[in-house]
């Protein structure tokens, strides 16, 4: 395996790479990074952080580069940018001290899962006796026999607020450091452009050309885009499901579990299945892909995030399936444990790529016309 470079060395490698690309420009249609490079003659660390987050890690510029190893220029842009990207996540992390967590993500996720599961189980067992923990409940409010609704929603609100603050602070730092002003964000056109790029995964789909991207090797296809779509929209559907459920609960006083034919269950089920499919697909790509243009040391972060997302969805589906039986309390605790863990690690997980990539797309929208 190749040597792991320090951040400073990586910045130097990236700067050199950008200079070579700027003299070459063959990759100009591959993604927004290359047309953006041409605006510059020199590259600051902040510029490189921006490029790193603008990169959607398709590896097309590695497979198609005549200066990739074994060439002595040794260009490996996807890998170099991936390393800088993770470093940038850690620099933007809020609170700052937690930035280090990005480098031990596998361990972090396992520990948080363990703690979350334990907490939910302790809560579950304190609030129930041994008999009732393995009993079949049914009917309205059965979940709250296991974990009371007040506790459930209280904790989730706290966690959500924390996540929101962490995201906002991180985003703000990214945006200001990249040389933009917060007031630029009032420009609706930027949001429109970035949102449309994000919701359509335009660049993973091959941009204007529309023939997809490379991912496992040098073949272009839409596979990664579709699995990402499944994960993204599956996740969106589970959020919608939860939101509807909250409205039902607080707005109408209708309490869970809901009917199989109810909106929360339909959205939750379809979303859950989509995430399961999407995360399995994305993992298979990661396992099979050419390892050379990949920042191996950070794969743990990617796998642990995908795995957590999978576990949340899979346990949710299992809960739905077995909710009438005696395993419901057990499954509920497991599911809630995973959900809690998921949100706790969210600001220090691969999830933040959505945040900073979106920020980079906003910035790109500002300059792309020129």
């Amino acid at each position, binding site marked *: 395996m190749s040597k792991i470079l320090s951040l400073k060395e990586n910045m130097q490698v990236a700067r050199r790479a950008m*200079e*070579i690309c*700027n*003299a*070459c*420009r*063959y*990759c*100009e*249609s*591959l993604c927004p990074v290359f*047309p953006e490079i*041409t605006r510059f*003659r020199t590259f600051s660390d902040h510029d490189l952080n921006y490029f790193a987050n603008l990169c959607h890690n398709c590896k*097309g*510029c590695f*497979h*198609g*580069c*005549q*200066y990739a*190893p*074994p*060439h*002595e*220029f040794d260009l490996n842009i996807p890998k170099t940018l991936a390393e800088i990207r993770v470093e940038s996540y850690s620099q933007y992390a809020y609170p700052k001290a937690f930035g280090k967590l990005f480098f031990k993500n596998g361990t972090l996720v396992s520990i948080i899962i363990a703690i979350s599961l334990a907490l939910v189980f302790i809560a579950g067992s304190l609030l129930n006796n041994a008999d009732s923990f393995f009993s079949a409940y049914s009917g309205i409010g059965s979940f709250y026999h296991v974990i009371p609704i007040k506790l459930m929603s209280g904790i989730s609100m706290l966690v959500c607020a924390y996540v929101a603050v962490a995201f906002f602070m991180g985003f703000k730092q990214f945006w200001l450091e990249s040389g933009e002003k917060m007031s630029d964000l009032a420009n609706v056109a930027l949001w429109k452009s970035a949102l449309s790029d994000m919701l359509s995964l335009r660049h993973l789909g091959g941009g204007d*050309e529309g*023939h997809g991207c490379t991912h496992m090797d*040098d*073949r*272009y296809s839409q596979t990664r885009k579709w699995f990402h779509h499944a994960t993204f929209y599956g996740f969106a559907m589970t959020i919608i499901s939860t939101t509807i459920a909250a409205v039902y609960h607080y707005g109408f006083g209708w309490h869970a579990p809901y009917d199989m034919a109810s909106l929360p269950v339909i959205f939750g089920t379809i979303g859950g299945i989509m995430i399961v499919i999407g995360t399995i697909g994305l993992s298979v790509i990661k396992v099979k892909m050419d390892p050379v243009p990949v920042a191996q040391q950070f794969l743990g972060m990617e796998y642990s995030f995908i795995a957590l997302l999978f576990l949340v969805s899979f346990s949710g589906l299992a809960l739905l399936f077995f909710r009438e039986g005696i395993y419901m309390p057990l499954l509920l605790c497991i599911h809630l444990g995973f959900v809690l863990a998921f949100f706790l690690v969210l600001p220090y997980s691969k999830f933040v790529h959505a945040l900073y990539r979106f920020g980079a797309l906003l910035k790109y929208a500002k300059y792309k016309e020129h």
Partner: protein
Amino acid sequence: MYDVIVIGGGNAALCAAISAAEEGASVLVLESSPKLWRGGNSQHTRNMRVAHAAPTRCLTECYSVEEFYEDLLKVTKGETNEELAKIAIGQSEEMYHWLEERGMFFQKSISGTLSLSRTNAFFYGGGKTLVNCEFQKAKDLGITILYNHEVEWLNIQNERVESLVVNTPTGKKEFKAKAIIAASGGFESNREWLREAWGEHAKNFLIRGTRFNEGKVLKSMLNQNVQAVGKPEQGHAVAVDGRAPLYDGGIVTRLDCVPFGIVVNKNGKRFYNEGEDFWPKRYAIWGRLVASQPDQVGNVIIDSKSFNLFMPSVFEPCKAETLEELAELLDIPKDEFVETIHSYNAHVEEGTFNPDTLDNCCTKGLEVNKTHWARKIDTPPFYGYTLRPGITFTYLGVKIDKDARVYMDNGNPTKNLFATGEIVAGNILGQGYLAGTGMTIGAVFGRIAGKGAAHV
């Protein structure tokens, strides 16, 4: 036994292999490079020239077959085989669609190349991406590809290739096929041969493309009375940054600053009009010009006024606050160097500088005048780039007919030997070069050769 063996793994070879396979032939590709170095010179290209009657997604306006042909006549000064040239040009648009239909993509002209957006279709991601997609297509068609297989000798008897002698990782082996397509490029990476053909000074030349085009297939054919086209001493050479790697420097080693400065040799003397014409029209003569200077070195000198006028270069220039210091960095005798600059500055006639037109800034009264973009070199910091000749490709090749069939010296067609790509470019490019025609010739005659070979 395979129906068709294709020698080489660049654009020409792969178009031929794909075309033969689509005609139903079983195809084997023998490529001398390892997989990671595959793609020959084709991996360094960026576009192909395409005639088109109306704008396409990636090409602007219209570029008629007639205009393409006229452009070709201009650069070759009429030295072209009209029949073959018209086939290449006439089928160029069809070839563009042929490639697209098979999963090779094009993009709009890349920044800094606007002048080519009408005539040249740019490969999406450049030549290496093109070649990768061609290899993927070949794989889908069931074509076998053997890397590290260098064809050393074609066994030609009675105008038929009976077998190929191939250097493989496990020793020499013989391969047979009903038909053979030679698409193994020129001999530009063969230093020995270059020295023979171009003289001693070829030892200081840099090779802009692959290290694997050693011309062994070409030599083997010429040694067995296959009819040649072009002369060994003909080739395309440009001036590149002197610090470029010995091989595979490709596009990024070019230096576009010559028209904005002056060029001195290692003795500090100017030797040619740097502002004769726009750089894209002149860059190809500077290879020869630098090649004829002592030690085959030139040095472009500019001052800070001109630093942002050209495409950025990959190598840092030598930079100094005084001319003396710069001379030292560039290893040029100080006095001569300073004297050259001073005398140049003294003869500059002030005009209105405009890099986009043939402006009126020039020198008068020098032995070698600069006729455009001449401005005094007087604003530090001063910058210097070293120039060396960089060979793009050689022209010596084999004669083919409209079916891409190879001929013998006695005028007879060979029975089962076809050729395409750089190895036949000399049929159409008797001299000079028109950007993007190399890939067009390889693709068009590749498709033709594949079809022909499949039905031998």
